[in-house]
């Protein structure tokens, strides 16, 4: 990856964000409005309508949702990123990592806006700011690494094996329900707990909750697993994108 392509990825990300903002009348306001509506819907369903959960249930739920949404949206959009770039890649040579990288960065910018809103909400809700907030940047970086690893891999594979798109849509749904967004994975025991702990997002969401809700440093063993898994998937994704670099423009 030369500096030119890095610059290009950044410029294209900015350009895509601008296009997105220019599309509706309300422009960039949507970056704030969308997460507010998204979180608001869950707030109404669980806190107001179902009157569910104990103390701090709403912030507990929102933290999980925000972390999950960043992962989910990025991976879903990356599934088709290379196929969508076919017109471009048959006119000019581009290293194929360009396509998922732009998608991931675009979603990361939007996640950061959402995160700022979430932190604001937590403060208004009455949760204190703690030293553990210092762990936010490294945790976000780790999640970005995980997203990149998974996204690069699925982006590389879908054009070769289109069935992966349907498979991933269902797998992401399953992962969503098993990631502990709606329930506390810590209450499970035995083989079920072990099975669930294979899902990297379980550890990431737990870590976000430790930091933001409980004011505790996150548990490192789970995050170490996430780190190794992310690096392995990143290596796989980069390898496949490189291997099929000049094959993608020929696939219909």
């Amino acid at each position, binding site marked *: 990856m030369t500096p030119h392509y890095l610059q290009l990825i950044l410029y294209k990300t900015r350009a895509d964000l601008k*296009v997105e903002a220019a*599309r509706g009348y309300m422009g960039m306001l949507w970056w704030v409005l969308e997460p507010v509506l998204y979180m608001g819907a869950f707030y109404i369903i669980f806190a107001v309508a179902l009157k569910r959960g104990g103390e701090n249930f709403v912030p507990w739920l929102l933290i999980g949702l925000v972390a999950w949404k960043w992962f989910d949206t990025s991976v879903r959009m990356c599934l088709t990123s290379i196929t969508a770039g076919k017109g471009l890649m048959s006119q*000019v040579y581009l290293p194929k990592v360009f396509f998922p990288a732009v998608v991931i960065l675009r979603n990361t910018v939007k996640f950061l806006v959402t995160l700022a809103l979430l932190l604001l909400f937590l403060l208004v809700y009455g949760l204190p700011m703690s030293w553990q907030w210092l762990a936010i940047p490294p945790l976000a970086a780790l999640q970005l690494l995980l997203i990149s690893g998974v996204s690069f891999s699925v982006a590389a594979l879908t054009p070769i094996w289109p069935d992966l798109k349907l498979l991933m849509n269902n797998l992401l749904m399953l992962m969503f329900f098993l990631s502990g967004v709606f329930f506390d994975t810590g209450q499970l025991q035995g083989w079920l707990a072990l099975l669930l702990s294979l899902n990297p997002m379980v550890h990431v969401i737990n870590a976000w909750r430790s930091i933001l809700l409980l004011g505790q440093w996150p548990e490192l063993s789970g995050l170490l697993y996430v780190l190794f898994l992310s690096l392995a998937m990143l290596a796989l994704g980069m390898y496949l994108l490189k291997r099929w670099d*000049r094959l993608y423009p020929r696939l219909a």
Partner: protein
Amino acid sequence: MKPVLELEHVGVAYRRRGGGRYWALRDVSLTLHHGETLGIVGRNGVGKTSLLKVIAGIIEPDRGRIHNAGVSASLLSLQVGFLPLLTGRENAILSGMLLGAPRNRLESNMEDMIAFAELEDFIDEPVASYSAGMRARLGFSVAMQADPDVLLIDEVLGVGDTAFRRKSSDEIHRRIRSNRSVILVSHNIGMMRDLCDRVVWIEKGVSTMQGEVDEVLDAYEASTAA
């Protein structure tokens, strides 16, 4: 003279729906020397587009070899990656970078680009508001910022309205005549005679003849007339 680019028995096959392969390019060998303009002639559908994509490094051949003396090669393409909702200026930078031009050079050449495209009053308007002619002018002006060692041209066409068509085709002719290495695909035999140093004739995916311009083109014309 040392060749900058050499193709040996290159073939490209596409998978057919329902199995089997279709060889768009069967056996092409050619040599490009530094600073020369090499013409490629052949009927429609003989794989000229696939050949240019192989040389540009966009696709990989299924057989044969390419020797590249460390040169960059890219297709002359217009309006690459244009996003209608961005301004002309933003599109010029984005498209120029996609074509391989560094950002700082695009920024320092911006005034020239705008002047060439005759878009002084509109450059900060979204491209969606441009007429087709204005868009073509901007696309051409940006494409001229690409600076590959080997320029690949699939038909020299002027773009835009009458006046700009002349201006743009003059600009391409000027580039072809310069000291740059060029591979030129065209159906315009008269222009090929005028611009090329050597010509390759491709028939059914095979490079059947390569050499002096008049010799190859005379043979090609004799075969098409028959």
